[in-house]
């Protein structure tokens, strides 16, 4: 019961207080906030519950009216169907491959750039940073057509290479900005300076001292760029639109536009679950770190 009392007394602003007069107005405020937040939690969670529930139902059960809130029988047949109707496993493989390669390449490039941009003053640094910021802030739709032409001219449409190039370009600015904040806040300049006093050059100080120390931040940014690529629909829908080469997001999008989302709802929802799981796993990995480190840096900058 103390749990509820705590909740009520320490709800909005301020920290836990053992006692203290709580005015009537405050009780009202708290009650309203709790009710509204409760309703909003239903709005947040219902779709995810509905996806999971639907993916375990048979195509007969899923059409029952009134809808079954708790499925009368659990079956994995929808996941099997998803593999047949949408070549889901192949698409998952494609997505994993391109996201992984793009994430490694983008993070590596971002780490070197972010390090010098966070540590040294050199002519052009501000301009470079501004260009990167502008690329990050302006929505990608304003540059898809020329990039489509570039990839087409390089004969890289419907290849992994083509979409990986696009993803590196797409994720790089964000990765640079995040890592720059990270280097500034979590990697003291004295470290590299000490290494250089010991005889390291600029690069070996970066490679042997800064990189190992910053591994957690770099890993988190790597996960971020992976998710960026994994979640993308726009680039993949243009660059890998045919048959076997589609990513999972394009596979799901196309299945929806072909009407499969209505005819084979349970398989559709199973595909959605499978497209979400990798993101979920990565999210759990980085959740703690996210709230403390990265966002603090990005707010400051």
């Amino acid at each position, binding site marked *: 019961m103390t*749990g509820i009392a*705590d*909740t009520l007394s320490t709800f*909005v*602003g*301020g920290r836990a207080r053992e006692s203290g007069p709580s*005015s009537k107005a405050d009780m009202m*405020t708290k009650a309203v906030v709790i009710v509204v937040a409760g309703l*909003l*939690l239903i*709005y*947040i969670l219902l779709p995810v519950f509905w*996806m999971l529930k639907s993916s375990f139902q048979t195509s007969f059960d899923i059409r029952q*009216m009134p*809808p079954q809130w708790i499925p009368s029988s659990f079956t994995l047949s929808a996941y099997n169907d998803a593999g047949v109707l949408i070549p889901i496993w192949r698409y998952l493989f494609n997505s994993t491959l391109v996201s992984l390669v793009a994430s490694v390449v983008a993070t590596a490039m971002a780490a*070197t*750039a972010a390090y*010098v*941009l966070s540590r*040294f003053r050199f002519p052009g*640094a501000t301009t*470079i940073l501004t*260009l*990167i910021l*502008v690329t990050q802030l*302006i*929505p*990608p*739709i304003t*540059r*898809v*057509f020329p990039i489509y032409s570039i990839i087409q001219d390089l004969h890289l449409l419907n290849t992994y290479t083509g979409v990986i190039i*696009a993803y*590196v*370009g797409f994720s*790089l*600015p964000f990765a*640079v900005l995040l890592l720059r904040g990270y280097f500034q806040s979590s990697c003291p300049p004295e470290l590299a300076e000490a290494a250089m006093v010991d005889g390291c050059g*600029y*690069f070996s100080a*970066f490679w042997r001292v800064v990189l190992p120390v910053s591994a957690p931040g770099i890993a988190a940014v790597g996960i971020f760029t992976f998710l960026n690529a994994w979640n993308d629909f*726009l680039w993949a829908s243009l660059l890998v639109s045919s048959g076997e080469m589609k990513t999972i*997001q394009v596979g*799901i999008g196309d299945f*929806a*536009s072909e009407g499969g*989302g209505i005819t084979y709802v349970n398989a*559709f929802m199973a595909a959605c679950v499978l*497209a*979400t799981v990798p*993101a979920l796993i*990565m*999210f759990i990995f980085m959740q703690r770190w*996210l*709230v403390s480190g990265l*966002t*603090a840096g*990005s*707010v400051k*900058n």
Partner: protein
Amino acid sequence: MKRQQRIFCYLMVAPALLFTIVLGIYPMLASLQMSFLEFDLIRVREHGTPFVGLRNYITVMQDERFVQTVINTVLFTAIAVSTVVAMGLLFSQLLSANFRGRTFVRMLVCVPWFVPPVVAAAIWMWLLNTDRSPINFLLREWGWIDTNIKFLTDKNTWGPFSIPMLSVAAVRVWNGLPFVVIFLLAGLQSIPRDLYEAAEVDGATLLQKFRYITLPLLRPVLVVLLILLTMTGLGHFEINFIMTGGGPQNLTNIMAVYSYNEAFTFFRFDTGSAASGLILILTGIICVFYIRSQAKAVGP
């Protein structure tokens, strides 16, 4: 020594700079240039791409559907941004208080974050299916409605507003909420605790503390957040494209979807890039203001 340091800096920054220019800055400018050419993919072989000045912009501006699309884009952004920030404020306030199960509630609020936008659109399409929606079922059960709400297909309008517009906006809010909550939580951490304690001594109510301490001190963070959300909102693509493709009757069409369809359905790269050029101009103006304000905040 100084020279060596410079060479090191340029070498380290070169790959990222190259990619940013080739895949970021150059395509933006090339896209803008494309919007001043005639660029019909079907006729480009024999016709080439002659310069036509502002003709593409005039063409799209004279298209009633595009004018409606611009209005929709602004309304979508306004609805989604204001709603998501209001909800974000509520949850970030709630989650910055100490109570048992806080970590668990924070995790629940963050659930939509790991749902890719395409999947978010897909789930909601099923959840909002007119005949099978559990929401419609409950509303009928409670006697609030007589006929099912056509969440994504109702063609009735109230001015520029319609049910499909609100439905799609709700999905965008759903998908964007966790980011806003986390962003605001980080901002709340920067407000000194003793301010609240002093206010409590003076007998301030919760609402007064929120109104006179939290909101003013959160202002810089809120401004940054509003700018970021407005820019992504104006260029938003996925959820509208997957859920409705702009329909019914253009009611949920937005500029990015219009631009994409012009180019890849009708092969008109010129009008397509004119539509996206407008997004570039709008977000570019906001971007300049943003960078200026940031530079002022950081600089001497």
